[in-house]
């Protein structure tokens, strides 16, 4: 009965405080399973998180963890990585934390190609503070600050990361658990900025406002609307309608990572080169 991934949790902190049916728990399990799959040393792995529902995950994970200022998880993680490049640094962030408060840090982390694995828990809303609309709340969806539906266009975080220079960009959902684990595991493999958007259900703040209060119903929505990237590319434009979205590996390229580039400068300045 005891599962091997349980060793990566702080058992005295469980059960976690997330609402009944919240998808964050599923993604947290996926992260530790990806870590287990890649055989990362617990003492050489650092989990850095910002502020928000998603970022509470660092408190439950039995690694060296850092729960940082709102939106500033990526700068803290950059510091950790540069100070000791042999550490595996995983960043846990949310849609508000990453694209609103930490938007600038996010794009510059991508641009520098720091060797981090960033997992964005996208629940489409600010859950902890009472359901305000975030930059990733889909247009026309309701929130406490958008009672008639959000008029803003929402960010596509994967496109944003790719355009900003991230070398590995992927998306998955809390429904596609094994797929999500694989996406995170490949992200850990990539030497450079790896960005994984995990779509999670928030039945309490987002679901209740948008006629999807049942968490299972929200997961079925993911099942019915997510399309694998390969199939999505072949799909004619007139079928890419409604709420359909692609999942899978969105972008992958090779580029020098920041720690390597910095090492070169250290050598130059030391007069060795």
């Amino acid at each position, binding site marked *: 009965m005891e*599962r091997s991934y349980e060793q990566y949790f702080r058992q005295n902190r469980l059960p976690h405080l997330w609402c009944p049916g919240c998808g964050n728990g599923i993604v947290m399990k996926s992260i530790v399973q990806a870590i287990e799959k890649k055989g990362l040393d617990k003492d050489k792995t650092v989990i850095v998180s910002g502020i928000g529902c998603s970022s509470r995950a660092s408190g439950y994970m039995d690694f060296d963890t850092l729960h940082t200022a709102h939106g500033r998880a990526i700068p803290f993680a950059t510091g950790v990585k540069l100070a000791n490049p042999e550490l595996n640094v995983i960043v846990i962030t949310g849609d508000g934390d990453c694209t609103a408060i930490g938007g600038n840090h996010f794009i510059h982390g991508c641009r520098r190609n720091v060797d981090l694995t960033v997992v964005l828990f996208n629940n489409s809303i600010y859950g902890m503070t009472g359901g305000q609309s975030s930059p990733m709340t889909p247009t026309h969806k309701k929130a406490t600050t958008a009672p008639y539906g959000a008029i803003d266009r929402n960010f596509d975080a994967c496109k944003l990361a790719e355009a900003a220079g991230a070398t590995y960009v992927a998306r998955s959902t809390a429904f596609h658990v094994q797929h999500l684990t694989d996406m995170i595991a490949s992200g850990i493999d990539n030497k450079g900025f790896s960005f994984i958007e995990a779509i999670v259900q928030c039945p309490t703040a987002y679901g209740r406002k948008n006629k999807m209060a049942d968490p299972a119903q929200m*997961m079925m929505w993911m099942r019915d609307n997510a399309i694998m990237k390969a199939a999505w590319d072949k799909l004619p434009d007139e079928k890419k309608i409604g709420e359909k979205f692609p999942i899978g590996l969105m972008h992958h390229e090779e580029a020098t990572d920041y720690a390597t580039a910095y090492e070169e400068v250290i050598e130059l300045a030391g007069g060795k080169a």
Partner: protein
Amino acid sequence: MNTELSIKMPRCKGCGICVAFCPKQVLALDELGKVQVVNEEACIGCGQCELRCPDYAIFVDKKVAK
């Protein structure tokens, strides 16, 4: 069937995800709103409940011959 369902009750929050994704209606919510096994015989051991449980409360194992 040849499977064993175990539940860590203190972890269950009664969200009903396992109940909704079970293809054989093995699970239900009890009067307190927590998960209970109502038809263990029907379990085919697909593991959908364990896979998607956000609270790591339910586990599906193959029965070990005693």
